[in-house]
């Protein structure tokens, strides 16, 4: 007892009881460890999977897009008491500049949640090269800002990402469809009749087939000339510090400016539903694993109380209080939970390392990076210890309520 002299009475007795019941203790610790490892591994897997999805979604997309509200048809000359026309035709949507966009950029940049604001001109056009033509979506932007939102230089596969007033960038799919390489001229025409011939500066791959076959990037001034929007911007792309705050920030912007603000969460609603379903499934699995761990601990301690009835009786006879007996068994639950969680955390971490090492894509790259969050480990340790304590409550009460006379005779 020399080496453990600093331990309070209940802790030492709890520890010795556990140590004496070696096999029983070992089995339940392994059981808890497996449960904790499953929780840690699954959570890290799902977090990694979600982070990977989010990363892929946001590779070619801003967190929020601010644009002028859609044009609405209003009935004219309809006064009070007059009948409104039942059918009104929705007007065609044209490329429209945002009013006072420069001051709006300053306002948005002043918001603490906002990281980058990039103005752009968006519009539809037709790209032609000899006989081939494709309808495209033109993004006229300021590369310094836009590249901070969408890292085009990192996604460049051919040519350069530098854009001059007479050049443009296109995606891999579109380049393949048109059969062009950097340096080739491309003719761009709008429905308004404006035609420009620009040089292909580079080809990018944003990892999305649709974007690669549709998007054309050019300098903002070039796009302004193309769509007759001199000095204007039709859209503001925003990135935020917290990507999950996008919807609330978008609503805030919408209510303050009266403009339309679309968050990535809203535009990817299906994806978010899937994420929510995954999170719910993960929570349910965690709950049931914790429940089975809890019942495992409780059953072992119930058996332990029966096995140690006589010893509990002796302790009570020598003046040990009911509360002390209760604490001895509660601590056993807590210690089992903690020990199982420590082992489980190691197993979970090992499983993660093995996953990262052996689960690879066909090209040898990692499937996706798992999130080894230290908070996850701390949470698992706390949850397992708490589960241990709660599970030990019933056995501990039973031990504390044992009649010493009956217990000693047991």
């Amino acid at each position, binding site marked *: 007892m020399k080496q453990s*002299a*600093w*331990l309070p*009475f209940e802790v030492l007795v709890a520890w010795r009881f556990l140590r*004496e019941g070696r096999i029983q203790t070992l089995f339940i610790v392994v059981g808890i460890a497996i449960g904790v490892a499953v929780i840690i591994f699954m959570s890290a897997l799902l977090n990694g999977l979600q982070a990977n999805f989010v990363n892929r979604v946001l590779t070619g997309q801003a967190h929020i897009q601010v644009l002028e509200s859609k044009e609405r048809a209003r009935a004219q000359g309809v006064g009070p008491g007059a009948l409104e026309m039942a059918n009104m035709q929705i007007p065609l949507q044209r490329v429209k500049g945002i009013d006072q966009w420069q001051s709006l950029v300053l306002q948005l940049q002043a918001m603490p949640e906002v990281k980058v604001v990039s103005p752009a001109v968006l519009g539809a056009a037709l790209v032609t090269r000899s006989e081939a033509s494709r309808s495209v979506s033109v993004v006229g932007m300021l590369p310094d800002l836009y590249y901070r939102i969408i890292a085009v230089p990192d996604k460049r596969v051919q040519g350069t990402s530098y854009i001059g007033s007479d050049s443009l960038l296109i995606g891999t799919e579109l380049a393949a469809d048109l059969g062009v390489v950097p340096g080739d001229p491309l003719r761009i025409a709008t429905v308004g009749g404006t035609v420009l011939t620009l040089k292909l500066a580079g080809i990018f791959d944003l990892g999305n087939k649709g974007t690669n076959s549709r998007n054309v990037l050019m300098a903002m001034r070039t796009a302004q000339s193309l769509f007759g929007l001199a000095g204007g911007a039709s859209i503001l792309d925003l990135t935020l510090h917290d990507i999950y705050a996008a919807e609330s920030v978008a609503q805030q912007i919408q209510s303050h400016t009266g403009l339309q603000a679309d968050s990535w969460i809203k535009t990817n609603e299906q994806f978010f539903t899937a994420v929510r379903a995954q999170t719910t499934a993960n929570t349910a699995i965690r709950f049931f694993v914790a429940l089975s761990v809890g019942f495992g601990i409780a059953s072992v301690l119930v058996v332990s109380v029966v096995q140690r009835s006589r010893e509990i009786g*002796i302790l009570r*006879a020598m003046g040990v209080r009911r509360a002390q007996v209760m604490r001895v068994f509660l601590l056993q639950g807590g210690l089992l939970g903690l020990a199982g969680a420590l082992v489980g955390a190691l197993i979970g971490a090992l499983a993660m390392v093995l996953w990262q090492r052996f689960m690879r894509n066909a090209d040898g790259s990692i499937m996706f990076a798992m999130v080894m969050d230290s908070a996850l480990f701390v949470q698992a340790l706390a949850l397992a210890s708490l589960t241990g304590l709660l599970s030990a409550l019933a056995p501990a009460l039973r031990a504390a309520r044992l009649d010493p*006379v009956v217990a*000693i005779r047991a």
Partner: protein
Amino acid sequence: MPELSIALAKAAPVLELAGIRKSFNVGADNEIEVLYGIDFCLYPGDFCAVVGPSGSGKSTLLNTVGLLDRPSSGSLRITGLETTQLSDAQRTHLRGHSIGFVFQYHHLLSAFSALENVMMPMYAAQGLMDASMRARAAQLLDSVGMRPWLDAPANRLSGGQQQRVAVARALAMQPALILADEPTGNLDSKSADGVFALLRSVCKEHATAVLFVTHNPQLSARCDRTIEVIDGRLG
């Protein structure tokens, strides 16, 4: 030793029982009376045997005196303190500080060494351990001839050795009263003699009152007093 006898006779009783009755409920309306008004006193240094046939109420008497069980009626004083109205926590405290137990089946804690078993009542009372506990436990084990086995696990000791450790543990809190429930019942005659002699010497050296339940007439004959319990009454 006439002086000592006079001194002990004048000392306040350690244990006073007056009209102690104990009954158990068996079923809804069925009550079994086990003790029918027991009266006796024990003084410091008294070594008193309790004899009687099986089922006569000896163990119930011992459990009641040891504050493990409450009497149905009557008065029970330990070191002058009336115990029948005490709360469970107060009884536990009094039991820990004034009463030592020695059971028939040794009842040591197998997860602890001999020394740790003797330290246990002091450790439980204080919550934390200190060097004086260890010194006192070692001294007590030395006094019962267990010095070479201080760190031996309790479950590796022989029956006689375990009972010696149990006697040392009963003395740990310097109790006024030791209750021994057939402490030699499970030992060979040589070990039984050794344990009996040990309890007797403890009783005299520490002026501790000992209530000693036994079925062995030879041992009861060697006690200062003998109380016979027959069908819940003193014979």
